């Protein structure tokens, strides 16, 4: 494919709600653009049920992802299922290379690559990955029918995960390091009222135990019901994400003290021509929602449009319409 000849107005890195929404706006602005992402929907595609996105009382992450992607494609935009491996800048353009060794050139970039799952970094976690340790309740809940599982975390995702696991397992322990869950009250009440779920507060895991083949339990940092161990079949880790910023670090994009991309109100970064949106950026603090990601994607696309209208000789596709 001869992609080297094409210069896009905009390349969007990431195909979650931020990147996809940016594309919807970019299409309407007639920007010649492309979405590159290795996981359509990003973190959303892992969510069992979403109940706080306007217009949908209840929808699965996969279904919402598909609907947003359909919307993007109906406007003529392309979503390439490709992982970006490098981002550089030459004199005039940004150059993006993918894992398939394709090269794309663009005047501007919206970086919306989301986060990667945070790990506990305790003994047994790596060893028993896929043998009882999981980071995805929707993917793996069904492997623990009538079993005993624990889920670690206190966020909406953790509470939702506990609730989803309780559909399969006989016993679910929700283990959180603080004295109260940080999930929305609607989720907190739901897990508190679920007879299959027991919440263990102010407790951390010290180790994930196994018999060499699979998980057999966990060791806690304090006693719970007279024991510092729980006998389990599975352990789900749902403690948030770390921003994936390796790509932008090399080009000098400024991060905040927690490692998220620092953006201004219009989503611009400190580097001319690069915007950021969604979970990778610090615009919404730690309130990482689908709707905030989508809003940031829209803002970023609007900023790109204004920027291109003023500079770089306008937008490539403007004459088409």
């Amino acid at each position, binding site marked *: 494919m001869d992609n080297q000849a094409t210069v896009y107005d905009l390349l969007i890195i990431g195909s979650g709600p931020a990147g996809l929404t940016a594309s919807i706006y970019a299409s309407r602005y007639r920007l010649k653009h492309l979405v590159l992402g290795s996981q359509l929907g990003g973190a959303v595609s892992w969510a069992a049920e979403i109940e706080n996105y306007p217009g949908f009382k209840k929808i699965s992450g*996969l279904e919402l992802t598909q609907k947003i992607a359909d919307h993007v494609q109906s406007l003529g935009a392309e979503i390439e299922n490709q992982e970006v491996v490098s981002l550089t800048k030459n004199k005039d353009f940004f150059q993006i290379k993918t894992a398939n060794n394709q090269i794309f050139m663009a005047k501007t970039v919206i970086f919306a690559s989301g986060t990667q799952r945070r790990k506990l970094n305790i003994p047994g976690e790596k060893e028993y*990955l*896929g043998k009882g340790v999981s*980071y995805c309740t929707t*993917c793996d809940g*069904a492997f623990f029918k009538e079993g005993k599982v624990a889920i670690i975390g206190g966020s909406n995702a953790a509470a939702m995960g506990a609730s989803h696991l309780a559909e399969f397992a006989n016993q679910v322990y929700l283990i959180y390091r603080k004295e109260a869950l940080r999930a929305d009250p609607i989720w907190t009440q739901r897990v508190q009222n679920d007879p299959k779920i027991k919440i263990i507060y102010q407790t951390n895991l010290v180790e994930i135990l196994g018999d060499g083949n699979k998980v057999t339990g966990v060791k806690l940092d304090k006693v719970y019901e007279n024991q510092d161990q729980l006998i389990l079949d599975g352990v789900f880790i749902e403690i948030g994400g770390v921003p994936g910023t390796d790509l932008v670090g090399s080009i000098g994009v400024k991060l905040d003290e927690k490692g998220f991309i620092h953006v201004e109100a219009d989503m611009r970064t400190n580097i001319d021509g690069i915007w950021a949106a969604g979970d990778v950026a610090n615009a919404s603090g730690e309130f990482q929602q689908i709707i905030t990601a989508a809003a940031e994607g829209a803002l970023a696309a609007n900023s790109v449009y204004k920027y291109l209208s003023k500079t770089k000789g306008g937008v490539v596709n403007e004459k088409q319409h």
Partner: protein
Amino acid sequence: MIDFNDQNFDQQVIEADLPVLVDFWASWCGPCQAAGPIIDELAKEYQGKIKMGKLNVDESPQSAGKYMVMSIPTVLIFKDGKEIKRQVGFPGKEGYVKILEEILTNG
């Protein structure tokens, strides 16, 4: 792309002449939806070298149980009827290519 299942697993995977990649997946799994099209691409790129197919864990729970697959997507690679490599989670196309190249190089 072949659909492996509990019925044809021995014949298609265990008794195969080539190394075989089995992609364990289910319809409810988001990361599996990301991995699926990549496995399709790789099946074409490695045609004649490595046999590839998918196994739906919902429809074929025995195979998933037998090989202790408790997380999806998981890719297992078999050679001469034995599991020689396991990749849990979606590592991107690069991740899969690395594994396949290693297998072709080291036999």
